[in-house]
């Protein structure tokens, strides 16, 4: 065998993009994740436009529903989907193996974040297309703050998902992230605005990442306004969960 041993790493950007693409394709090929990421949000969207649940909140049913559904999409992909796949990657030693390649730990995490953003973009396109068919009329001025908030929300939920995935067994991650998705989805102020929740929950949900993201997106798309308070709450969740994940994430 005549070969010159030794290689050099591919450029950093290429490694991260490759990992992002690989993880995004893995997510999109996973049937359960696809149900969580696309099918359930679309069912919720249709459900909310044919029932009177959101009537009287200052817009048509579909206009009030869509921002919450987009927030739900961010939670599906960044928190539940990402958390579960990272938890199992940790179990099977995938994180450890990839961290020995030139990709490294930082590249691996950056790749995961890219994958979340790529899948989220596809979700926005699909949900947006269905919403337009259902008569969605978003405020034009709302698009820029809304997209920025979606990215921030994805960051907060990714940090939370990684925190769960990096500290408990994958079976527990599966249970926790799915349960929280249902609980926060139904009662966390994400799809159903705080005003329609039972009294004690109303105050609480403003401080949850779900409530903050849902509220801020509704403000953006319904009124074209930027909700500073909710943005601050999302930033805090991102910073605290991110720091906790960096501190306690176990690679094996």
């Amino acid at each position, binding site marked *: *065998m*005549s*070969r*010159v*041993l*030794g*290689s*050099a*790493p*591919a450029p*950093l950007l*290429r*490694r991260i993009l*490759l990992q992002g693409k*690989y993880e995004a394709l*893995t997510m999109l*090929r*996973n049937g359960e994740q696809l149900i969580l990421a696309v099918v359930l949000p679309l069912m919720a969207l249709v459900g909310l436009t044919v029932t009177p649940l959101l009537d009287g909140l200052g817009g048509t049913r579909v206009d009030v529903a869509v921002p919450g559904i987009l927030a739900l999409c961010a939670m599906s992909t960044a928190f539940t989907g990402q958390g579960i796949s990272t938890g*199992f*990657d940790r179990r*099977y*030693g*995938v994180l*450890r*193996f*990839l*961290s*020995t*390649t*030139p*990709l*490294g730990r930082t*590249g691996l995490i950056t790749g995961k974040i890219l994958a979340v953003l790529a899948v989220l973009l596809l979700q926005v396109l699909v949900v947006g297309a269905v919403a337009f068919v259902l008569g969605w009329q978003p405020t034009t001025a709302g698009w820029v703050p809304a997209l920025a908030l979606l990215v921030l929300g994805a960051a907060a939920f990714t940090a939370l998902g990684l925190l769960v995935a990096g500290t408990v067994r994958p079976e527990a991650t599966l249970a926790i992230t799915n349960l929280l998705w249902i609980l926060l989805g139904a009662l966390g102020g994400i799809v159903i605005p705080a005003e329609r929740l039972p009294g004690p929950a109303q105050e609480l949900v403003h401080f949850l990442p779900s409530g903050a993201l849902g509220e801020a997106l509704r403000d953006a798309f319904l009124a074209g306004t930027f909700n500073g308070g909710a943005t601050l709450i999302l930033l805090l969740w991102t910073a605290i969960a991110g720091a906790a994940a960096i501190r306690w994430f176990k*690679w*094996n």
Partner: protein
Amino acid sequence: MRSPDSPVLSITGLIKDVGPLASLDGKMLRVVSGVSLAAEPGQVTALLGANGAGKTTTIECAQGLQRRSGGSVSLLGQDPDTAGAELRSRVGVMLQDGGLPPSARPIPLLKHIAGMYKDPWPVDELIGRLGIDAFSRTTVRRLSGGQRQRLALAAALAGNPEVLFLDEPSAGLDPQSRQLVFELISELRDAGMGIVLTTHLMDDAQRLADYVYIIDAGRNVAEGTVAQLLQRNISADAAQEHIRTLLFESRPGLDFTGVLPATVDVREARAGSYSVTGALTPEDLAALTAWWAAHGIMPGSMSLEARSLEDVFLDISGREIR
């Protein structure tokens, strides 16, 4: 810069504490206490020891997967705890648990990993060399143990590394895969790769290793070439007395009373599988073969060994079960 002849890996006084552990009243547990070793390019260096001896912890500290508590590690002249992608691109790692995503298919996975390197080992060549084409459409979760190990080896080689770490490389390998993997390891060694492997199998070490470190309870207890280790601890008396182990396969239930001297130890480990250990003389062998001839017995196989690496290992690390 490393000169061509300097070790690819050198570890001095490695210490690794884990914990605090609730089972030790919140104290730390020292799993590696002062391991030192060096691995040369173009050689297979084996860390031999029982399960739990600290072999995996030692090489994971060398790979930068675990942070050491003390001592120093130099991998290709760099500290793995602080080195970056440049060092990782020159080192291949095959983990004990494989570390491959269960839902992946072999070829896209290998192409993905190869993409992390500037000048990877051509994936097609690796696939052919390790017989991966035979199961290229199967997901990792459905592969047999041997197929998974071969894929994990291909993944470790994707970057055409200068140093290759193999943690228990023959675990789960069927005889054909084992042959294939061992041949490849020998070729890579001849090409100049520095190979560091851990194993609890004496046979692996005996067949593959140029240099062996025996690790027990987190320390090095012996080192040398296989031949040097086999010579170790044989007293002059024992050598003169021709302490030998004769292994042979024959008909079950044979009784050698009166054929062999009462001082040698005759055992039938499995039905028809005998081992005779003791100060055997040429006359004893002649008596045994004459007895076989008289009874029309032809052994299925037989071998005579001065000492096995297993004996050396047991002598050093003790024979009690831990």
